[in-house]
């Protein structure tokens, strides 16, 4: 069992942070890599990119949004409870290099994944501008951490309750217009990554995105996570999860993420009824 040592609720309880004892994974994990978690014997294997790792404490941190039955099961775990299985670190780490001026764009829980990457990009000597967004102020996560991890933090909300009123792409446009940018890293909902990539293509700025398709094993064995990159099929679990944002077929990815949509909705609603939620 992998014990939960810290648990926090964010974004009005829709987003949960778990710090989990997993010393062997913590020792090896690098920014950008993911783990697969399974809470119970009957549970599903859920891939989540790590939000942090602490080799000294022997822990990894995940931050997830409750979207279905499996994440609802995760939510019910308290401090001292544990996950039955955690597999990792999986996937290729982020390529960290001093390139100059970097813009990190995050939306929703993507900000959690973006945080260690942002920090690492700053540590290797880049000047990092960060743009993070949420639907509304109360749903914004990791503001202080992202401020510390970057040189310049910009905030957007869809409803204008905090920071710029509008989408991250609008602020990104300003940032790109202002001058020399060498790399953009965008992590968030698929439509956000799609539109960020569309914009950076116009400015000819290299863009990295992190994909989270449906997955079973996470080791290249099932091919469920296949994504089209520049017309070629790749497995996100072993070839990714990070890819050149300008090459990704986002429309295909969005459709494939809906493969079990109806099943999952019914399964989640049934679970919520049983839990009296």
């Amino acid at each position, binding site marked *: 069992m992998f014990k939960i040592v810290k648990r926090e609720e964010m974004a009005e309880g829709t987003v949960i942070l778990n710090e989990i004892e997993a010393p062997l994974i913590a020792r090896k994990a690098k920014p950008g890599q993911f783990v697969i978690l399974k809470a119970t014997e009957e549970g599903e294997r859920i891939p989540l990119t790590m939000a942090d790792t602490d080799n000294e404490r022997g822990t990894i941190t995940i931050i997830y949004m409750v979207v279905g*039955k499996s994440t609802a099961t995760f939510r019910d775990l308290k401090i001292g409870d544990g996950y039955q299985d955690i597999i990792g670190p999986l996937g290729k780490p982020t390529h960290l290099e001093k390139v100059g001026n970097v813009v990190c764009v995050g939306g929703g829980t993507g900000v959690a994944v973006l945080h260690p990457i942002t920090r690492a990009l700053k540590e290797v000597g880049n000047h990092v501008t960060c743009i993070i967004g949420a639907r509304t102020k109360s749903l914004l996560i990791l503001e202080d951490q992202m401020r510390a991890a970057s040189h310049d933090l910009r905030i957007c909300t869809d409803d204008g309750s905090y920071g710029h009123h509008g989408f991250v792409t609008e602020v990104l446009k300003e940032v790109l217009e202002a001058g020399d940018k060498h790399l953009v890293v965008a992590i968030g909902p698929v439509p956000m990554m799609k539109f960020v990539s569309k914009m950076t293509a116009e400015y000819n700025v290299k863009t990295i995105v992190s994909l989270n398709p449906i997955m079973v094993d996470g080791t*290249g064995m099932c091919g469920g996570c296949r994504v089209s990159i520049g017309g070629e099929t790749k497995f996100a679990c072993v070839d990714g999860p990070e890819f050149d944002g300008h090459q990704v077929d986002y429309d295909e990815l969005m459709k494939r993420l809906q493969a079990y949509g109806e099943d999952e909705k019914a*399964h989640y609603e049934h679970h919520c009824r049983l839990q009296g939620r």
Partner: protein
Amino acid sequence: MAEKGATQEKIPRQPMPEQKPEIRRRNFDEVPLGLSPEAAKLEAKRCLQCKKPACVAGCPVGVDIPKFIYCIREGDFKQSIRSLWTRNSLPAVCGRVCPQESQCEGSCIVGKSGKPVAIGNLERFAADYERLQGTGELPPKQKPTGKKVAVVGSGPSGLTVAGDLVLKGHDVTLFEAFHKPGGVLVYGIPEFRLPKDIVFSEVGFLEKLGVKLEVNAVVGRIVSVDELFEQGFDAVYLGVGAGLPQFLNIPGENLIGVLSANEYLTRTNLMKAYRYPEYDTPIPRGKDVVVFGAGNVAMDSARTAMRLGADRVRVVYRRSRQEMPARAAEIHHAEEEGIEFFLLTSPVRFLGNEKGRLIGVECLKMELGEPDESGRRRPVPIEGSEFQMDCDLAVVAVGAGANPLLTQTTEGLQLNKRGYIVADPETGKTTKKGVWAGGDIVTGSATVILAMGAGRKAADSIHKYLTWGW
């Protein structure tokens, strides 16, 4: 002698009781039900107890077949399983999934003038009897050698290596990437052919013998092979299988509803998606299913689709019936269950709707031309023969390749051009000191028993190394 021969002629091969096709095609329970002790003893009497047994020569792990059968005949079931264990640590598995017709039973002298002795069914009987009613008494183990062996992959070859070496007194740790041990026996072969409880029981037996098991351990990620040596392991065996799914590489393959057989079977078998929503992992329940390929994995996929409630299941294969690589018994079982075969047919492209979901596949009719490099007649498309098959689920079961995850992170390991590990066929030794390999990661996709045979040879070689050096 004449009298003995006469007795044998009188006893017909004892039929294996089975679930009826119309019942079993909708459930996941095991198809064959197992022999009764009486039937097993009767079947055992059919064995001629040959002085130079051809059956043993036909067995990749060299089981002393006449001996274990003689014990069954005498009603000494305990001694029978003990005899099996000396050569085979997974008899309950082998009795079920070995291609006996081309190995032991294919060489059986009784089979020359009638039906061969049901060696597989008897092996299964001895193992099941021990598991369900046996004494649980463990076979003798040699005293500890103080040597540590890491076995990477807990499929058939890894389990064999672990079983052999633990009995020789070595300290063995099995590393498994999944959350459950067994490899292909658990994620690949369906419950109705090999109940998972049997695999876990066989692994449990190894654990009782002292084998340590580390699940969730993706070697190459959480620990490298070199780090295993740093941690004090004296030898490493790589039996990671051929776990890279091959696709057809035709347009539309990324539509929702097109799955690799690996994914389809892993969801069903390992994740128990057939019991969804009791288990959380979903599985597409196609009504009109097409399976591509004609090996055992294709048969398993087709029969699984039928059990998951399909109205129609079609197996599409580009060659003819003669070239189908699946075992005859599997093809027979599939046909009994209502699976249809579309032979000399090759897919051209998948068709989808606006939501990206599969609605059909366009195929071409083929004819057989000249033999190709495999010696089989090459299928050639018939011009203008395109036709469309409607379907809402397609399972691609056209083979597997070498998964590079471990091999790419291990220095000093020579690979062939297809990415498989180069290992000495007699010893399993790789080009890296202290490292052996065997099973599908060396040979490409093969059978459980061939992987076990490779494991046996490697275990002998590892034991020699640990005793006398490289």
